[in-house]
């Protein structure tokens, strides 16, 4: 059980629905400390700290309500890891499941959403609106775009929202930790925050606490506890898509004569504010980061509509700062949120299983890869055509740089990487190598694409970029 707590914490931080079913020792032995296998002082209490809920099925007839509750919660609340533990002496008890009693499949209840008229009024009066989109907005693309256009509002995106409104003139796929993005937000007279916890790994990555006050803040979130954590003028609790649709309708009702396309002057100004922010945000970044972003763009353009799964590694850190993915929900990583190293290789495997027709590209550093490269064999065994890119800078370079910056002699940042070519060979996986030069990487990616197609998408490959 303890081995899965880290992924559960990651899922909790990023609101990912996950059902974790575990065993636990037989009921009569719990809490006695008698030295049983896998014994913990109180496994369920431990899990309660990380899971959204943790339930023990201590009798056979408790299985059904526990599962019903878990599935109901996934569809109606802020998602997260749900834990159900079954004692070893309960697992084998006789129990007949009546499938008609599976309640979540029968649920026809419509989601209730709050009244949006006051919020619509405030938005209608705003002259300089900015939208902050988080992971909770990733299924709202059509209405979000419509609303942004209607309000001429630039849309700033956290990592989990990237891919929304790709290349749209109002899209700002840049971190709100950057000065340029903060300026855009500070200048707004009304901020609409959709499905974002306003967490520091997106909004204050450098921990300088210089994030501006959010004027006229309207928050939309499915989670009431989350809404209570920040001061806001208006809180709208419920499904983000439904609330945005309601807002859009209210706005149109407020000014029925207003054409669907906003007046060109205001629209032009919105586009201008977004474009200026994009340019200034990119200019703020180091040449190294800008180079990393060019590599990410190259991956995206070589494999359109692919799924990019990242670890905590320099390419991904750069992408967190600025990267415009081409489809929503398809760029995710562990560099923001809980921040567990070793995330990308197994998460890419899960992604490839969920979308076998799409190209999945995993980007890890040599450090992060060493946390979980045993899972490469799972990709081989399941015949998943993932491209595993290893950014090999021979150590924890980002951490080393951080230590040096504050005058700490770098210690512990130089784990020797394995020979990745041999590692790929040991996993019977085709291997390609290149430098971080854009042109060289482009040739290697094309070669990788041919390899994947050549094996009829039944085999993963590895590309090592030596930095």
């Amino acid at each position, binding site marked *: 059980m303890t081995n899965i707590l880290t992924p559960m914490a990651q899922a909790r931080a990023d609101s*990912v629905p*996950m059902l974790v079913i575990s065993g636990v020792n037989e009921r009569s032995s719990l809490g006695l400390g008698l030295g049983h296998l896998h014994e913990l002082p109180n496994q369920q209490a431990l899990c309660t700290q990380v899971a959204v809920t943790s339930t023990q099925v201590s009798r056979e007839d408790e299985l059904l309500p526990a599962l019903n509750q878990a599935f109901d919660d996934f569809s109606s609340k802020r998602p997260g890891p749900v834990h159900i533990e079954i004692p070893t002496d309960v*697992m084998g008890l006789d129990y007949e499941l009546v499938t008609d009693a*599976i309640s979540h499949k029968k649920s026809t209840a419509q989601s209730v959403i709050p009244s949006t008229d006051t919020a619509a009024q405030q938005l209608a009066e705003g002259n300089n609106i900015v939208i902050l989109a988080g992971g909770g907005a990733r299924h709202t693309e059509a209405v979000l775009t419509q609303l942004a256009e209607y309000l001429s509002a630039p849309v700033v995106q956290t990592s989990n929202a990237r891919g929304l409104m790709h290349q749209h003139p109002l899209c700002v796929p840049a971190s709100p930790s950057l000065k340029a993005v903060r300026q855009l937000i500070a200048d707004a007279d009304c901020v609409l925050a959709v499905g974002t916890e306003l967490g520091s790994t997106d909004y204050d990555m450098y921990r300088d606490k210089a994030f501006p006050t959010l004027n006229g803040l309207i928050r939309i979130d499915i989670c009431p506890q989350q809404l209570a954590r920040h001061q806001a003028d208006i809180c709208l609790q419920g499904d983000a898509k439904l609330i945005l649709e309601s807002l859009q309708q209210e706005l149109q009702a407020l000014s029925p004569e207003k054409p669907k396309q906003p007046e060109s002057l205001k629209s032009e100004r919105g586009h201008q504010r977004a474009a200026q922010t994009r340019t200034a945000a990119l200019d703020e970044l180091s040449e190294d980061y800008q180079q990393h972003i060019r590599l990410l763009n190259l991956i995206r353009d070589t494999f359109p509509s692919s799924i990019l799964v990242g670890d905590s590694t320099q390419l991904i850190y750069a992408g967190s700062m600025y990267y415009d993915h081409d489809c929503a929900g398809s760029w*995710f990583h562990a560099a923001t949120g809980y921040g567990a190293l070793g995330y990308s290789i*197994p998460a890419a495997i899960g*992604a*490839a*299983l969920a979308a076998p027709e799409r190209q999945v590209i995993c980007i890890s550093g040599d450090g992060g890869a060493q946390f979980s490269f045993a*899972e490469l064999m799972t990709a081989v065994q399941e015949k998943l055509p993932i491209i595993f890119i290893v950014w090999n800078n021979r150590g924890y370079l980002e951490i080393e740089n951080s230590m040096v910056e504050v005058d700490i002699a770098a210690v512990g940042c130089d784990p020797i990487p394995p020979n990745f070519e041999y590692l790929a060979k040991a996993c019977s996986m085709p291997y390609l190598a290149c430098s971080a030069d854009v042109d060289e990487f482009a040739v290697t990616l094309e070669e990788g694409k041919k390899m994947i197609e050549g094996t009829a998408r039944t085999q993963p490959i590895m590309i090592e970029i030596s930095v």
Partner: protein
Amino acid sequence: MSTTVGEALVKYLESSDVEVIFGIPGVHTIELYRGLSQSGIRHITARHEQGVGFMADGYARVSG
């Protein structure tokens, strides 16, 4: 023929359209695997329980 809690769990997941599960069977969980081979659910065996969780995370983000 009567079934067990472990078999009922598999039946529930299958009835709820769960197609893929991630796990590593161990002595503590073998009874949860009874009935799995007869079901339509695909079981992915990870190499570490941390992998199990991260795989489920990646799967959920893409399928949900």
